[in-house]
């Protein structure tokens, strides 16, 4: 398109500059900080791998946080994917109510995560919450929700799925609209039924969208912070202590910048590894 690379570089340079200043540079600083420790008087000193060895060998809080983050990721990503894909498939048909429900399902996305967190905290309050009132009305036992180490992470997952599924549904809908109708017509001529069409045509042809949604959603959920900060503060008993929150408290509450930077650096490596694996596993095997 361009005769020389120079022109191309010229065009990307503004974006590149912003990327360098606001993304690459802070990441670099954070990596650098993970090898440093700051004393209370503000004196910084190089400590080599000390922060890493402390986290890996002597820090049960960190390991619990790693466990919680992985469990959270392994649950929330497939569930979000499944729910948003299902909604998209249901709302891809043209009915008189389709547009209405597309809007309704998309609405939670328009609410900020902090507001969603406050709403969930009120609804799922163990003592005076709306959810428990309904359970009682239906003759069931009231539940502790965010007040129980066994239920709290599930409640955070529910919150995230409720907030995000509508957003990813839009990507799936766009993907579905992009599949040429003629392919389905040809399949029908060959006698394919609904299920055949779904599993043999729709899903394979959606691979690129699925791949994008999965990778973005995974990275997004690894960085989940607001609901934990607002509702649970990592508890009860560390059951919702996601790495991002642990890094935050380490940095801004206990003022241990070295430990915080080390956690974010580890998190970055984990996200990159996961993204790479997901991209490899969901690579489209054909062109259309």
């Amino acid at each position, binding site marked *: 398109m361009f005769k020389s690379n120079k022109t191309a570089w010229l065009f990307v340079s503004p974006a590149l500059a912003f990327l360098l200043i606001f993304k690459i540079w802070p990441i670099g600083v954070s990596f650098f900080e993970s090898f440093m*420790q*700051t*004393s*209370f*008087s*503000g004196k910084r000193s190089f400590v080599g791998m000390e922060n890493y060895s*402390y986290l890996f060998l*002597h*820090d*049960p*809080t960190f390991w619990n946080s790693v466990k919680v983050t992985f469990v959270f990721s392994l649950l929330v990503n497939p569930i979000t994917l499944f729910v948003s894909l299902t909604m998209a498939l249901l709302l891809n048909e043209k009915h008189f109510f389709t547009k209405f429900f597309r809007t309704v399902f998309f609405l939670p996305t328009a609410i900020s995560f902090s507001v969603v967190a406050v709403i969930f905290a009120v609804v799922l309050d*163990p*003592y005076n919450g709306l959810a428990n009132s309904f359970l*009682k009305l239906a003759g069931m*036992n*009231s539940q*502790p929700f*965010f*007040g*129980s*180490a066994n239920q709290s992470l599930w409640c955070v997952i529910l919150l995230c799925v409720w907030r995000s599924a509508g957003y990813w549904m839009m990507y799936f809908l766009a993907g579905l609209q992009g599949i040429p109708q003629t392919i389905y017509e040809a399949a029908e001529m060959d006698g394919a039924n609904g299920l055949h069409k779904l599993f043999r045509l729709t899903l394979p042809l959606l691979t690129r969208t699925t791949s994008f949604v999965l990778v973005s959603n995974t990275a997004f959920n690894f960085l989940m912070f607001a609901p934990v900060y607002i509702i649970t503060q*990592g*508890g*009860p*008993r*560390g059951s919702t202590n996601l790495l991002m929150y642990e890094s935050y*408290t380490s940095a801004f*509450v*206990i*003022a*241990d910048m070295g430990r915080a930077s080390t956690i974010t650096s580890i998190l970055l490596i984990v996200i990159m590894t996961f993204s790479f694996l997901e991209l490899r596993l969901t690579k489209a095997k054909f062109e259309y």
Partner: protein
Amino acid sequence: MKRCALVFLFAMMAAGIVTAQTLEVLWMGWPKDQVMQLVNDFQAQNPGIKIDIQLIPFGQLFQTIEVRLAAGGGTPDVYIVDGPNTASYAARNYLLPLDEYFTAAEKNAFFKSSIRAGTYEGKFVSVPYGTSSAGLFFNKEIFEKYGVPLPSEKLEDRLTWEQVAELAKKLTIDTDKDGKPDIWGLGIEQIDRPYLLLPLMQSLGAEAISPSGFETKGYITSDKFVKATTFYGKLFNEWKVSPTGLNDSAIAREYFGTGKFAMMLGNEWNIARLAKFTNLKYGLAPFPYFAGGVPVTPTGSWHVGVNPKSANKKAAVQFVKFITGKEEVIKWYKLNGIAPARPDVYAALPGDFSNPMWQLFISEMNSTAVTRPDTPGYSQYELILREAFASISYGADPKKTLEDASARIDRELKKYK
């Protein structure tokens, strides 16, 4: 910005406009109309000194103090200090030693425990402005309704924690038979705060931190500390006489005020704050202790300090002495209800403090009160230990949780050595 300000100042001085000294004061975000009454008093008596007071909301206060002092300038000249943060500020030379400015008689006007809280490495660095105490509030109607004899309100009949647990078991009641208590035996106003919980461990003879203030291993992991913490955990998990997760002290107070707690371990401010529950009939028993142990009660509150880099040290000390002095503390108590840190104020207001509940708190402050741990890393200590207490209230193993917490605290305290 700073340079601009300096230029401006010089310009003003050259013009001869500046005749008065201005003191910048960083203060807790109490209602402005209340605070300004004291400030105006001072300015009326000291026409040469102008006070520029900044009221910072509680949520941002400590961060603001940190940032302003770390900047290293001469302002604020005077600032408010939470008692246990005294060491943290003093270790970084953020507090001017005041021994040369205060006579022995002036220092003796404050409670001894408050003076101790304002002292770091033998130097008097923060002047007590208020104090606090706690006890066991109980709902008389609930006791009477379920035929349980009322606890004694006398110091000499102090309940043991074992007795409190028995009472709490009797008074945890499921009135509507839905399998969940509607009246809880014991509520804890600050459910996971070391402030209110350390006296349990200290009652058994456990120490909260090493004498150096840099180590918790062997202290918060000691058998006695674990034993008292286990008792605390049982309240929620084995005997189920306290509800988990009620970590807002205002809500705990609502529970007590509306008859959902038979007893509540809470602070002296409840005398004023429970007044809104007009139907509530309650009593106050002394802070319990463990059988075979010693009575220990929490204490401590706000102090006032002077920035050693202030250009107006003399005026700053003058202001500190004024605002912590008898007359102004009386005025402040009348305005805001904070427990004064001066015995002479209690003596001056017999009408207010002759109330037996206040009498109880005053005796506790004079005899059983123990200040929070003396360490420059108090804020880290408090946060991590608080997390550990919260986990234990949710059923985590006390010994293991305290050991983990101790390792984390000790790592953070190393930075202060």
